[in-house]
């Protein structure tokens, strides 16, 4: 098992290099760099000053040299300095945002799991019943709902009309003056809408997936055997069928990381949440090359880790995979 994990870890290195190379080329091939962004509106800037600025950022070198330098720094986990005013380390800027984005995503995955699994199982067991039909239509509708629109509707309902929930940020302005219990509720109430919205998109897909896994498993011979030996239906469904139907689910959870990260740009900008998505959006808008590169590579790295955890989890759960 350890050897398997080690091999998978080694395999991520060339993938990461490929990803960073593509990102680098795409970013640097685009017209208009940070120097132009900073100086275009200022007629007093001389050509010489621009050159100096370009040299300061290291942008005067040919692209392949810049990439080699960047890669060299990456080897020591140095993401470089942000081009923005504050000039802070990129790793620091990203590091303080990741917990926010990650915790919202983990919470929403949990929510997806808790809702989608029972929903999928029940639909599969009662295939073609009214419940199954209604949930199928609901699932398709869920696929089609743009998450940012859902966010707007919920904000209008719970934030504006009813006034029950806050609609932006992670904590209220008066957070520091609140008592301990009020602090917990303050945080929770700020998280309710973002977590629900980010979970909603996945809910439809996962419950559909669970349903079809379940339908697949129920047709297997060992289920017929379990029924034939007189086990109660509950046991057949939850012991024999569900455990096997959950297996492919592990893989999909791992594969959903890039989608969740991409989605974080949208819901973080709607709910004004200071996470990785918002940071990336700001970085893109100000052409902060080191920050963009850092965020893309970290995003890809998280994706690869997600894939790996999924594969390892699958191997742990399913002995048939391990022997291969």
């Amino acid at each position, binding site marked *: 098992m350890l050897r398997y994990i080690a091999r998978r870890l080694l395999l991520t290195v060339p993938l990461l290099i490929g990803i960073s190379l593509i990102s680098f080329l795409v970013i640097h091939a685009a017209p208009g760099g940070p120097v132009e962004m900073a100086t275009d509106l200022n007629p007093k800037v001389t050509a010489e000053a621009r050159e100096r600025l370009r040299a300061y950022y290291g942008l005067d070198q040919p692209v392949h040299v810049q990439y080699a330098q960047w890669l060299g720094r990456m080897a020591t986990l140095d993401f470089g300095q942000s081009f923005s005013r504050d000039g802070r380390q990129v790793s620091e800027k990203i590091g303080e945002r990741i917990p926010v984005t990650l915790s919202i995503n983990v919470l929403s995955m949990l929510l997806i799991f808790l809702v989608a699994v029972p929903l999928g199982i029940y639909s599969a067991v009662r295939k073609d019943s009214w419940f199954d039909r209604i949930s199928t239509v609901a699932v398709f509708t869920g696929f089609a709902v*743009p998450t*940012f629109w859902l966010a707007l509707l919920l*904000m209008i309902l719970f934030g504006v009309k009813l006034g029950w929930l806050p609609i932006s940020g992670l904590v209220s302005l008066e957070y520091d003056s609140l008592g301990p219990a009020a602090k917990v509720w303050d945080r929770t109430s700020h998280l309710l809408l973002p977590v629900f919205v980010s979970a909603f998109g996945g809910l439809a897909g996962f419950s559909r997936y669970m349903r079809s896994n379940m339908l697949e498993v129920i047709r297997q011979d060992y289920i017929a055997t379990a029924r034939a030996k007189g086990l109660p239906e509950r046991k057949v469904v939850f012991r024999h069928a569900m455990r096997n139907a959950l297996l492919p689910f592990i893989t999909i959870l791992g594969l959903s990381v890039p989608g969740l990260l991409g989605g974080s740009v949208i819901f973080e900008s709607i709910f004004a949440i200071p996470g990785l998505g918002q940071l990336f959006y700001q970085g893109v808008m100000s052409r902060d090359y080191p920050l963009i590169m850092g965020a893309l590579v970290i995003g890809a790295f998280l994706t690869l880790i997600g894939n790996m955890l999924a594969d390892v989890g699958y191997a742990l759960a399913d002995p048939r995979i391990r022997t291969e």
Partner: protein
Amino acid sequence: MAAGATSMFRDFLRRLLKNRLAVAGAVVVSFLFVVAAYPSAFARHDPSRIDVRKILEPPSADHPLGTDELGRDVLSRMVHGARISMEVGFVATGIATAIGLVVGLIAGFYGRWVDGVLMRFVDIMLCFPSFFLILAVIAFLGPSIINIMAVIGLTSWMGAARLVRAETLSLKERDFVSAARAQGAGNLRIIFRHILPNALAPILVWATLGVAGAILVESSLSFLGIGVQPPTPSWGNILTAGKDNIEFAWWLSVYPGLAILVTVLGYYLLGEGIQDAADPRLKGR
């Protein structure tokens, strides 16, 4: 041969028409085509006529879906926005399908190291949080409609490539391919005459769902302000105005989103219906 193909198509059509949800999807999609083709027939007002006396008016007889922050008629803007969404959806999916077809056919047919290299490239592309990449590229290249179409297409072809590759791998071992080869058919002839036509059904399904996905991505980009730029109307950028006026004008938020929802749902139902009709064995899965 021709008669066989026609009757197969007729069977396919019959199965498709029996599926009520698929028919509903087809009706929605056709209606959108008509709206996109003749927007002026559905819009009573000029979508870009600003009227400062009518700012943020709630729905009324003259403006069934209200007016926006510049006094423009929301219904007219949505009708014209439909055209943009359909164009982006189709062109982006066309690009993605074309790339996916080429990559998948080459990888599946030639196999060995060609397959290895192409599929590793697909793996790399799948590792990007693609929305991050799209965002970066659009922000750099400028948010023109052409750029949006191209970038969505260039970042969403991987699924099609994997699908086509899998189809090709199984098709190239079939007897009819061996027969064609025995008759002296070259690689290109085998790919285009024998493998491609047999892989078309799953690709059609993929593309139908792809249009829906592209429309969603376009509206998200426009919502974030880096998609279709005002004054050109798009469902996404009307929603931006909805967010900015969330406290006063619910109609700016509700209707454009509903249009996106119904459109995407229409494509999904149609796509699923095509899949079930093309391969009845998989129905209900």
